[in-house]
């Protein structure tokens, strides 16, 4: 009887141990959002929210009147991200389709880890290549003095989001039930027709999720765009223009800003906008993906 009691106590202690860690993680991770919000809010004692979101000019150190508008930064982020996706979606889905439908399984087994290597390259290294490789190349073809512009960032972000897009699209293409393609092939459809008309539509939600995750990564990427896009504080009008994204702006100014000033709080407000944007994008991807996986089960 006492032996049982002891055993039950031990079991409860072990459960309590794991429970404590679970709660701790959850609190800390939710705390990130809370603390970010808490630090961003004081910015709006001096800045109107509407102005913050719709003003193009960001000039916090102006001696006359500091201006805090992040519209240019948001548009820059969206421009660079859109460019990256335009490049990465066709290539990424193409590679995924090749791996799932054309390539021999041995090729697939070799290529998949190679693509993973791409995902493992640190963003600061990719940014470095933007300076030493892509920049000079873009300067040559555009005739500008340097190639540090939105297009440079887009090219690099495309490379960085490719592994995500490829691996998740490939998973969802491979998960399309064999009977779908067999039915199509039995109706004398070619393998290409089967791929384009049957498999890709059937795997579409997975591909959309893959694109959303790639997009989330591109929006939040810091070092690459910081190093490759030139960081001019202007409103973006073309891909050959130097731009400053939300992430770059935080990275450039957080090192120099005095703590607990409006400028400091405003940078956290930029971070909050960034957090919310990526969270929404990832949430959509997650919901699409889970729904899709449940259907598979």
């Amino acid at each position, binding site marked *: 009887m006492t032996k049982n009691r002891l*055993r039950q106590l*031990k*079991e409860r202690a*072990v*459960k309590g141990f*794991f*429970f404590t*860690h*679970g709660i*701790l*993680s*959850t609190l*800390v*991770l939710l*705390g*990130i959002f809370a603390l*970010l919000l808490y630090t961003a809010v004081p910015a709006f004692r001096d800045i109107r929210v509407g102005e913050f979101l719709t003003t193009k000019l960001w000039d916090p150190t102006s001696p006359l009147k500091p201006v805090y508008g992040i519209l240019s930064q948001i548009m820059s982020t969206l421009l660079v991200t859109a460019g990256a996706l335009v490049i990465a979606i066709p*290539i990424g889905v*193409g*590679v995924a389709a*090749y791996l799932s439908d*054309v390539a021999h399984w041995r090729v697939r087994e070799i*290529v998949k880890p*190679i693509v*993973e290597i*791409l995902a*493992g*390259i*640190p*963003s*600061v*290294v*990719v940014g*470095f*290549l933007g300076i030493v*490789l892509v920049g000079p190349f873009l300067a040559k073809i555009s005739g500008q003095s340097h190639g540090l512009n939105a297009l440079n960032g887009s090219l690099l972000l495309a490379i960085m989001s*490719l592994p995500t897009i490829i691996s998740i699209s490939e998973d969802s293409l491979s998960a399309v039930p064999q009977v779908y393609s067999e039915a199509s092939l039995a109706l004398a459809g*070619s393998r*290409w*027709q089967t791929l384009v008309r049957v498999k890709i539509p059937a795997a579409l939600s997975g591909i959309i999720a893959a694109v959303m995750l790639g997009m*989330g990564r591109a*929006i*939040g*990427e*810091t*070092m690459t765009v910081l*190093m490759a896009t030139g960081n001019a504080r202007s409103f973006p009008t073309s891909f050959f223009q130097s731009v400053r994204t939300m*992430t770059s702006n*935080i*990275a450039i100014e*957080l*090192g120099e800003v005095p703590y607990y000033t409006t400028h400091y709080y405003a*940078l*956290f407000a930029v*971070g909050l906008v*960034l957090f919310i944007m*990526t*969270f929404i994008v*990832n*949430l959509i991807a997650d919901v699409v993906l889970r729904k899709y996986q449940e259907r598979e089960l």
Partner: protein
Amino acid sequence: MKKKTFVQFLGFFALRVCLYLVLAALLVILFDIGKKGAGTISWEFLSKPPRRGMTEGGIFPAIFGTFLVTIVTAVLAIPLGMFTAIYLNEYARQSRLTRLIRLSIRNLSGVPSIVYGLFGVILFVNILEFGTSILSAGLTLGLMTLPWTITASEEALKTIPNSYREGSLALGATKWQSIRTNVLPYALPGMLTGTVLGLARAAGETAPIMFTGAAFYLPMLPKSLSDQFMALPYHLYIMATQHHDILKVRPLAYGTALVLIVLVLGMNMAAVVIRFRLRRKRRM
């Protein structure tokens, strides 16, 4: 019929071109850095500090700093992540609340690294007054890694069939005995692999440590966790963009990039090897 085959030929050819483009991008990256970086690598480069305003010398302090900060990251993220995953997968009731917690954790793994940097500045540097230090930077990276570790560990636990748990319980094992002897040993390879992959990513990150402890240049190695430190990724950023004579130090930047890539990809490979080894051991 002929037209159909032709279209298919063209289509598959286009897909193949996509693959070649991706492989070419990777090759160009690795080749460029490998070729230009290899010339810089020497024993001196790896073992000596920078000299003469970082225009000569090595990167030892940066390697050492990255090593230290990764250890702090691991100490925070590995136990907390694994234990949380065990709680969520083995103990928690599968209620709406746990589903919500899981969803938030998965989504936090996609939050930009610079946001974690901001959080580190408020919490560790300012509120907890750890200052800009190895501790602050390591904890910041640890929090960034935590969602990955939890998710990867939970995925690994999910692959263990329920019949192992039930079979063990039916023999009169307690819940913890069942988990310890019949679940964890088989889930551990997957948990470790996911965790090491997370650490590799953390070791290569720059944005979260820029404002929480990484320093431009330090004449001496850090003596305690409350000192600032030099780190490989930040050092590369400095050498590539902030140095007063960027073109002159370019070979040093290439060397740093090569060391960083080898380190991060080496950790990735180690993760895969761990999984492979432990899996084989289990099978016999």
